[in-house]
């Protein structure tokens, strides 16, 4: 049923002066229909109203409206402001009466209240399920309009603290997965990179349990290898963090003299370390043989490279060790701030 006009919700009261009964009687029968307010054609303001915004210059509201306001302030029952007969409510359960209603009102009663689903071809559409009789259920989590919180000034209640780490829209995914996805991306095609990331994780979780090589120790605190396939994100993180170099070698021109660049080891932050490791792994994966065909080839090679990193077979380990060795050799070149 369409909502009846709620005059109380208008910003400014619409003036309506109730006419006296005697005037009604002399009018013809047809004219004695429900009195209507024609909001778009009627004059908005009575002639007495001036354009001034000052309160004292504005005309007083109609008697009944004023009484209703007073009643609201004092908390008592005021006069009914709403006009017209609520016909829909009257005939609600009376089928015979409904059948005698005018066609327009019948149609309005019959029309579904926004229940029919719109046409859409998207897979992510919200039309898959035919909605139930209880209105459209959009599946919003914990969104209940009826239970308003008591805290004033907050519309949907205060969040429970501490706020979870992934509650921020920009940090909702695992940081390693995010970073690797971005490094997988070519030509700005992020969706392809995301698909490849999903395929890599799928390969990791279906591959057999890795055997750890004791000469290539993973980072301390690593879980037993049997746990890895069930947690592919941990698998990925472990592989990347284990081969991530601690430093890089910066070549400073002219510092050593004689045209030789001075090799200075520079420590790396966590994100930079991971980035280097991922780039090494991706370079090693590109050099691998492409055995299959189709879209998932690269993802499969990257996944195999990750597995071989964890198993200690990958050439990335040599690369890391070489960087560390060079760093140790060049440690004399590190310039530390002078002690006082």
């Amino acid at each position, binding site marked *: 049923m369409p909502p009846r006009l709620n005059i109380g919700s208008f910003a400014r009261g619409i003036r309506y002066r109730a006419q006296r009964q005697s005037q009604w009687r002399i009018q013809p029968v047809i004219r004695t229909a429900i009195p209507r307010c024609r909001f778009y054609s009627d004059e908005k303001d009575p002639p007495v109203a001036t354009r001034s915004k000052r309160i004292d210059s504005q005309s007083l509201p109609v008697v009944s409206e004023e009484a209703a306001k007073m009643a609201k302030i004092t908390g008592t029952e005021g006069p009914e402001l709403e006009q017209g007969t609520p016909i829909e409510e009257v005939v609600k359960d009376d089928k015979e009466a409904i059948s005698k209603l005018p066609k327009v009102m019948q149609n309005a009663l019959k029309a579904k209240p926004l229940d029919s689903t719109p046409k859409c071809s998207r897979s992510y559409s919200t039309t898959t399920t035919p909605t139930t009789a209880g209105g459209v259920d959009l*599946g919003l989590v914990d969104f209940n309009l009826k239970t308003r919180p008591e805290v004033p000034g907050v519309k949907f209640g205060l969040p429970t603290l501490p706020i979870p780490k992934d509650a921020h829209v920009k940090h909702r995914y695992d940081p390693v997965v995010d970073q690797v996805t971005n490094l997988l991306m070519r030509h700005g095609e992020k969706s392809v990179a995301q698909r490849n990331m999903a395929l890599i994780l799928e390969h990791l979780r279906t591959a057999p349990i890795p055997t750890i090589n004791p000469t290539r120790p993973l980072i301390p605190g690593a879980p037993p290898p049997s746990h890895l396939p069930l947690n592919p994100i941990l698998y990925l993180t472990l592989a990347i963090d284990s081969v991530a170099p601690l430093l890089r070698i910066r070549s400073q021109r002219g510092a050593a003299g004689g045209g030789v660049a001075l090799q200075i080891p520079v420590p790396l932050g966590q994100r930079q370390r991971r980035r280097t490791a991922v780039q090494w792994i991706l370079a090693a994966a590109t050099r691998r043989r492409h055995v299959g065909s189709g879209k998932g080839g690269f993802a499969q090679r990257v996944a195999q490279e990750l597995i071989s990193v964890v198993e200690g077979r990958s050439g990335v380990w040599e690369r890391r060790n070489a960087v560390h060795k060079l760093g140790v050799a060049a440690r004399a070149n590190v310039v530390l701030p002078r002690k006082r």
Partner: protein
Amino acid sequence: MPPSQCFPGFALLALDRAAHHSIASRSLLALPHTPRFSTSAPRYGPPPRKGMVAPPKRGTKTLNVKKGKSSPSRDTTKRPAPGDRKALRKRIVLSNNNALEVPTLQDLHKDTVLSGENEGLVKGLPEDVVDALRAVEAFKPTQGWRLFRRPAILMRKETTLLAALFREVEGTANGQAKMTVRKVLIGERMSGKSTMLLQGLTMAFMRDWVVVNLPDAKDITIAHTEYAPLPGSQPTQYTQDIYTANLLSQIAKANQSILGNLPVTTNHSLPIPLPSKSTLKQLAELAITNPEASWPIFVALWKELTQPGRPPIMLAIDNLSHIMRNSEYLSADVKPIHAHDLALVRHFVDRLAGKTPLPNGGMILAATSGSNAPTSPALDFSIQVAEARQLNPESIPQWNPYKNVDQRVMECLKDVGVLKVAGLTKAEARSIMEYYAASGMLRAQVTEPFVTEKWSLAGMGNIGELERVSVRLRV
């Protein structure tokens, strides 16, 4: 299982060449003369010494095929054999040893598979049914079977509807004519139409029906398998011998327990001799060794299956829109052949249209595809009409009279019913997500808000999307 496609005629080519060669040699004998141009002397002579060959003139371009720094080192290892890459891509893996065994998972049982009490539960597939389904190529490589320990299906609302249809077919009394259900599975992309077809096949296998499944209509019509006109057909129909032979071997393998017990009862005029007292399984397997006779064998097998007293038949096809248009084949006068002129497709379409009912009862099930569907306006319109006939019979859409109509498709789908595969309810979504979590593939606590979140992310319970957002870690 031999592939459905093959390249014919290489042997013929070789024969041709041999013939020409013999002619050439004879003509040489008749007219001996020295060849004007020969590479024999440089080839068989000693290699030139290094200093002997003059360097190329300045400014001339020479071919440099030496290995050097400029050319990247070429990979000289052996390439995969032809077909291996595709086989790897299309491989069906039905088990993941890393996934946890779900202790609460129970197998479907023959007696209860059609009852409504399974609704909303995840049920395992028995091993023999899995083998049969694999034989008829019901599993697809894009589906997520490879993530779980063993294949299991969610008995959703639509499954119950399908089971009710099975009960109707089986429940017809002896005196009455047996019922034939004809349905097209429709729904949005990734809403589980092919899986619903697989569930239908599962029920048919468990209820001891004879199952004939055309795994993908695309394979029949894209002209990757050989074809020949069927002699004596008016208008000309075309048989696909290799494909039909493969199909017959699949039928024999998937239904071996049923077909092995049914004897051949009538005399068939087959081009190859059939041993007396043979079973239907032997009849079907005859096509493996004689693919050129596969179409008469298929007709004979169908005739046997429609004799009175035989089990009901399940006839299914996936990717329906490929057979509702012109095929990629060309006729002798270089005109496109309509897919309905292919004998195998015609056989299916006649049953789908209800032109030739199944005397022992059965079900004709066709699934549309959301991801690989060539446009077929007549099919789309017929589906709309069928939907309107079910939902609001007052307003049935009319065909735009200014558009060309494929009358054969319209005829075929005139009164076929549709079964809409919609989204899961939240209870069903919760049930399958609990199964995901118990398999160790979903690392989260399955709570009401979590289920609701994933359910709405998946377009209000689209099961493919639900799997994508919850199991496949697709960001």
